[in-house]
């Protein structure tokens, strides 16, 4: 094991930052790790900690008292914490992301007047744009983070990022959103309609430009007009929107914001984690830590243990008959005892192959951040506060 990959505590990172964003590929335990870090911060560091989560497992959401809540953050009650044997120094809050509600808020905030806001909200393009299609998800998570942070109510905000097709999509979402609204495309699409103004948008000189001729052939004139009306209204929010997107991006770059990449030691997630670490550095975000989740125990790689497994496989029958001689009732059926011994030794061997692959991958992590925290494989899915504490303890330990 090299010196860079020894388990290090997340404590200094969580102490010194206001926003910590957990990211990584799907299925690596990102949501649980983020929740565990939040709970541990409450217990050990105190203050007001908010965990902004996207889609927690139902049992975990239940454990945090999140079931059925929408976009509003909610305090995890002291009773819930005490019932789990947790005496927190601080206050734990949790919130889930509701994309549609966040979009609606955004429109109401940035539209020049109420009438325009409702025209946007009622446009049939709007539902499609915000609900059905996926890219808006990435942006809205960052937007919501900004809003929660500027409320000034929290000492620490921990963010579980949405599952993205590509881990860096959400980093680029604010810039892309600004680009989209300020972009040439929208100007082109809406140009023929501007003459009539927002209300009386109508077609002017439509056929004169090749772009519109092409678009008309493919999409049909009515659709173009729908788009144009929608975006004309939407563009009225342009200034506020772009400014906001820039602020969001700036917040992500500030010193008080840090990123934690979560991965398991499997080929595909690790490759994505490495790619993500590089992408963060390239874009000058602060890469705070790497969390290696679900690590198999070191004992699987131990020489003496492997010898023992080999011997058990070789000598299972004779060991079983020795055990039968002890007279214990469990060992009277020697063939069962031998089978159990072989199964145990074979299982050890199977898992040690996986462990060997893990430690090989772990050795390749030289260029990773200073803090690499490790969490062992637990025998069950974590679904309660006690389970979160087990993970939290590992995240805060120097091993």
């Amino acid at each position, binding site marked *: 094991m090299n010196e860079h990959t020894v388990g290090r505590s997340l404590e200094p990172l969580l102490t010194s930052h206001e926003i910590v964003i957990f990211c990584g590929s799907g*299925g690596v335990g990102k949501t649980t790790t983020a929740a565990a870090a939040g709970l541990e911060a409450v217990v050990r560091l105190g203050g007001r900690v908010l965990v902004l989560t996207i889609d927690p497992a139902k049992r975990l959401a239940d454990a945090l008292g999140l079931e059925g809540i929408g976009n509003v953050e909610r305090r995890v009650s002291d009773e819930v914490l005490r019932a789990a044997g947790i005496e927190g120094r601080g206050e734990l809050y949790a919130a889930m992301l509701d994309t549609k509600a966040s979009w609606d808020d955004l429109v109401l905030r940035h539209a020049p007047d109420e009438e325009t806001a409702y025209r946007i909200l009622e446009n049939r393009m709007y539902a499609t744009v915000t609900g059905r*299609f996926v890219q808006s998800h990435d942006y809205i998570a960052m937007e919501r983070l900004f809003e929660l942070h500027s409320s000034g109510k929290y000492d620490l905000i921990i963010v579980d990022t949405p599952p993205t*097709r590509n881990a860096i999509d959400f980093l680029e979402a604010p810039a892309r959103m600004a680009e989209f609204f300020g972009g040439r495309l929208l100007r082109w699409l809406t140009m023929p309609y501007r003459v009539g103004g927002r209300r009386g948008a109508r077609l002017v000189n439509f056929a004169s430009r090749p772009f519109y001729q092409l678009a*008309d052939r493919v999409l049909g004139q009515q659709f173009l007009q729908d788009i144009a009306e929608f975006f004309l209204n939407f563009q009225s929010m342009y200034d506020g929107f772009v400014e906001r997107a820039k602020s969001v991006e700036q917040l992500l770059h500030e010193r008080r914001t840090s990123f934690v990449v979560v991965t398991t030691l499997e080929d595909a997630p690790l490759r994505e984690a490495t790619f993500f670490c590089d992408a963060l550095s390239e874009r000058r975000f602060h890469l705070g830590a790497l969390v290696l989740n679900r690590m198999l125990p070191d004992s699987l790689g131990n020489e003496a243990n492997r010898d023992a497994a080999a011997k058990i496989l070789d000598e299972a029958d004779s060991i079983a008959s020795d055990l039968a001689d002890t007279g214990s009732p469990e060992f009277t059926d020697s063939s069962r005892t031998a089978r159990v011994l072989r199964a145990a030794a074979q299982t050890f061997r199977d898992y040690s192959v996986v462990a060997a692959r893990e430690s090989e991958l772990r050795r390749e992590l030289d260029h990773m951040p200073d803090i690499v925290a490790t969490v062992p494989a637990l025998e069950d899915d974590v679904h309660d506060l006690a389970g979160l504490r087990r993970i939290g303890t590992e995240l805060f330990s120097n091993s």
Partner: protein
Amino acid sequence: MHPTPRGVEAGRLDLLDRRLLFFTGKGGVGKSTVAAATALLATARGKRVLLVEVDAKGNLTDFFEHSHVGFDPVEVQPGLHLMQMRTDASLREYLRIHVRVPVLGGVGPFANVLEFVANAAPGVKEILTVGKVCWEVRESIEGRAPWDLVVVDAVASGHVIAQLDSPRAIHELVQVGRIREQTERMSELLASPEITALNIVTSAEEMPISETIDLVARARSELDVPLGVVVVNRLLPEPFTRADEPVVAALRTAPAAELLEARVGPGAEAVLDAAALAASLRRSRVPHLTRLRATVDLPMVNLPYLFARDHGLRAIHLLADALGAELDS
């Protein structure tokens, strides 16, 4: 909405006789590997297969240990072509074929605007992806493309509804014009149980199973695409039976523990610890599998956890064999 009658949904046996198989699932469950294994199995059974990687991570290129695969299909194994979806290339192809507008790279602002549409306008990426896939299937049915089967490593379960629903969404938005006819034909093809099946890959853990259950319900109410099979991937073996458990417990306590250590050395305890961890890992998954089987009435295909190799061509071969055995059973 016309929910597909149960009996018409894809049975497991005829899965490979369809023309278009989508594989989705929660991130991390191994859907790309399962899609690749399905493609490989179909190839082994004499079909010419096009495997489409949608999210351009390059995982499949890597699995097949092939240096570079782009939008144009490359034969990575005999009979198996692989392509990576690229929406800008798909748009260019569309414009070239259907609008007869040749769009070459860097042809001034026009090309830029089109690329921008593909990247920024909502829904465009989805329709360009599904459109290209449907085009390949349509072409092969009509004898102009060589594929017997198109296998799509689709987007993850959180996004797949938006993707597969995009023809209808666009169809609703566009009242007239060429796109309207084309999206209608795409929807027909996607809805045909003889042609298409949406398959869900999961692992026996809480979140993937919950997503699978949700997705089945949502697909039935929101999508007009027939469901195929649920693939339970990475099933851990069961090392001990219930009846074995007292034996395992006794082995870990005196006097048996001392006897064992005397026979095989100090590592005995760690061996039993590992076996116990494995047994409880396996046991923790049982309730999730029970919930899946109680809630979802689709055919289930079980694939084992591969200890020896977790990715690459060897892993795909092992999984293709296991998949073949399951489909024949």
